Structure formats: C-alpha cells, structure tokens
C-alpha cells in the first residue's frame, strides 16, 4: 500500500519568507510525528499528533514553527519568517493504526522528507 508522502520534496526559500510543508500519513494511522534532520545529524523530534490533537510540541524550536492536523489525517508544518538555521530536512512519520492513547513499541513509518534550503 501507499506509504507516507511529503511535498514538496525540495524547497528553496529566501530568508524571511513563510513556507508550508505537507505530510500525507498512511491511511488510518492515528499518530503523526514531525522531525527535523540537520546535515550530518540524526532526526530530532518537533511535534506529535494523535488524530487532530497536538499532544506534544515540546520540540518546536521557536514560535515561528507551527503544525496542524485539522481533520486528523493530512498535516502541515508551517515556518514563518524563515532563517538560515531552519535549513534542514523535515521528516514526517506515522504510526499506530487504530490505536488510542500512548502505545509503546510501535514502528514509525517515515516519509522521504522535505529538504528546505533558506538562502
């Protein structure tokens, strides 16, 4: 079946522009995660949704970062007034088909990522 998809795959933005990154999770997956992966580093957690509820946004680096999942499926990560330090690959993952509450030990399925370059 279809995996997690993300668009666009590449985005170049001038410093100060706003960007919106889209994630389509696996159909039926309750949990959705966003990660930021800087060059040469491992992914770092940004935020977590369970259905439409954003249960954890502790990893968002500043109030310029905003994520939403209004209908509990597609999610958008928005970055306002982009800065050069925002340049990274943004990864989306989904997990836990049909599960509610916190569940442990479930695989997260990752999309290919969006590479954001801020010039």
């Amino acid at each position: 079946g279809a995996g997690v998809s993300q668009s666009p795959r590449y985005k170049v933005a001038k410093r100060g522009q706003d960007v919106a990154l889209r994630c389509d999770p696996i159909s039926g997956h309750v949990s959705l995660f966003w990660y930021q992966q800087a060059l040469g580093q491992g992914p770092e957690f940004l935020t977590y949704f369970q259905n439409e509820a954003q249960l954890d946004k502790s990893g968002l680096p500043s109030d310029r970062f905003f994520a939403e999942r209004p209908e509990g499926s597609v999610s958008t990560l928005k970055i306002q007034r982009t800065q050069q330090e925002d340049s990274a690959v943004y990864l989306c993952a989904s997990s836990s088909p049909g599960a509610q509450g916190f569940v442990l030990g479930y695989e997260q399925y990752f999309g290919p990522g969006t590479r954001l370059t801020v010039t």
Partner: protein
Amino acid sequence: AQSVTQLDSHVSVSEGTPVLLRCNYSSSYSPSLFWYVQHPNKGLQLLLKYTSAATLVKGINGFEAEFKKSETSFHLTKPSAHMSDAAEYFCVVESNTGNQFYFGTGTSLTVIP
C-alpha cells in the same frame, strides 16, 4: 531522560566480512529500541526493534541486534556485508510515553568491494 550514543560515526568493511555497529542507550526504564537505515534520497526504513521480548532480535536483510541490559547496549550485527548495505544507520530509543523517538547521530557504513 532517554538518549542513545552511536560509538562510531563511520565504519568501513570489506564485502563479505562481518558488520558491527555499536549503540549504547540511556534510559530510566526498560525501553523499546530500534535500528533504522537511511539510504541516500530514501526514507528511513526499520531494520528491527526490541520491545522487551527476546533479547536477540532478528531483522530484515540478515541484520540482528542483541539487547544487553547490564551493558546498556544494543549493537547491530550482520555476518556478511553486501554492497547494498552501504547506508546511514540510526539507533533509536523510544520515550516512555511512546510519543517520540530519540535518534543517535548515525553511523555511516561503507562497504568496500
């Protein structure tokens, strides 16, 4: 807090020889642990996971890992490297609420023909 340390940033092996990628974790509870592989321009793919069942876990493509609580380690091994194994490998520990993964900094595996 949970964290993982991947002890080698780069590992180089000859084709057909064993692979060992080292990972140590830190956790205040008995965690779920994962190894993911990332090929260039591809998404992260699960190799295997440990979730408090058998301590020796077998994954895809001939990889396996052993959970050793006394050593807080979860090293990844493969008896015989193949050219297609060249990639970036990440060791991951799950948070105690299951709502986030903590990734190591990755190990780049090179396979020499």
